[in-house]
């Protein structure tokens, strides 16, 4: 399950990486200074492009997380149950001490009786 999820995740992340690189390039200081030298119409066109890339990047990042997020959600109940099972084992160990204490007390009594005999 997780292998399938990770494969899909890796494939989607490839698209995210491309959008991220484009975003980084568009918003680099050098690029912004360069765009600002262009006529107003061209600057406005770049603004439109920046809005589109930024929104696609944000949406794709979320979409890429979906497969592994689903895999996590599917296992959430089992992790919770595993922690609960461990706590039960811990309580089992806590029960050992009184049992040993009881056995010890019994042996002490036997020891005293034998010593008296």
């Amino acid at each position, binding site marked *: 399950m*997780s292998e399938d*999820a*990770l494969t899909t995740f890796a494939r989607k*992340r490839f698209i*995210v*990486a491309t959008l*991220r690189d484009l*975003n*980084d390039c568009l*918003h680099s*200081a050098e690029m*912004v*200074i360069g765009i600002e030298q262009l006529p*107003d*119409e061209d*600057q*406005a066109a*770049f*603004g*439109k492009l*920046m*809005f589109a890339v*930024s*929104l696609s990047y*944000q*949406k794709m*990042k*979320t979409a*890429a*997380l*979906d497969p*592994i*997020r689903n*895999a*996590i959600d599917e*296992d*959430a109940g*089992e*992790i919770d149950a*595993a*922690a609960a*099972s*461990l*706590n039960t*084992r*811990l309580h*089992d*160990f*806590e029960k*050992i001490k009184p049992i*040993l*204490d009881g*056995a*010890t007390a019994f*042996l*002490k009594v*036997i*020891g*005293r009786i034998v*010593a008296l005999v």
Partner: protein
Amino acid sequence: MARALLIISATALLAGCASTARVNQFRAFAEIGSRSQVAVGKIVDEAAAANIDADSQRLITARRLATKTTPPSVDLTKEIIASNKAVVAQTEALAAFKRQSSLLSDYFSSLGALAAFDGDSGITDSAKSTVTALETISPKLKGATIGDASVADFVGTAVSLAVAHFKAQALERELRKNGVLIERQLDLQRAFLDALNEDVMSDYKTLSEQQLLEGVIRPFMTPQTTLGAPWMTERREVLLAASTQAKPVQEAAALSRKLHSAFIALAEGRLQPEDLALYAADLGRLVTLAEMIAPSKSAGDQQ
């Protein structure tokens, strides 16, 4: 009787030593696992904040350019609503990973509590009392020694180690039952943190590029502006921050990869004490970095 007890005790001692070492591995791993999950939770919060800030910064730049014409090249209302929805969706997606780290933290805490169960001293005392009672029954046992230690001391240790053996068995059973599940979850977390690292680096880059542009490059490009100590300070801060801001996420991603490998090694019984010491050092660094996380600074729209 003393000889038979000596043989049984020696056998228990050998098995017990191996069990104690194994229990200690579980204990150390569980502690590292639990604390690292707490750090991951903090880092996811920071990543969500950096994502929103960087997106805001990109919107500011895009808006400034898009409004160079009248009317603007985009419908601004539509753009801000769409961006808000997308950012909220991403924040919710990140919250799922925070829930995962919380669940894993609970799991490792429970694993650690079982491994560190502090019943040994009480059980050892009980065992010593039992031997004292037996000494009364058999006077020969009273004088028996194993090396420099009395039988009472030795049996006490052996019983303590036997408890370690039972604990090791319980932990091994747990590993057989849920090991695949935990390994899968750690692998998913590793993939997530690797991706988050790339995204956060990009977000910080967007923010620092903007700070560089507004606080350093533009003043420098304006001949009328006098540059002095404040400009130098701003330049130093921006350039240094660019290389250190993403450090916590980088460390978390690296530790996550190691935790995943360590868990496989733990399950296969080949985890070395020196490996655990290294992971503990990595974790210490990560926790320090997570605690140092400061809110991101945005340059805003200064033109």
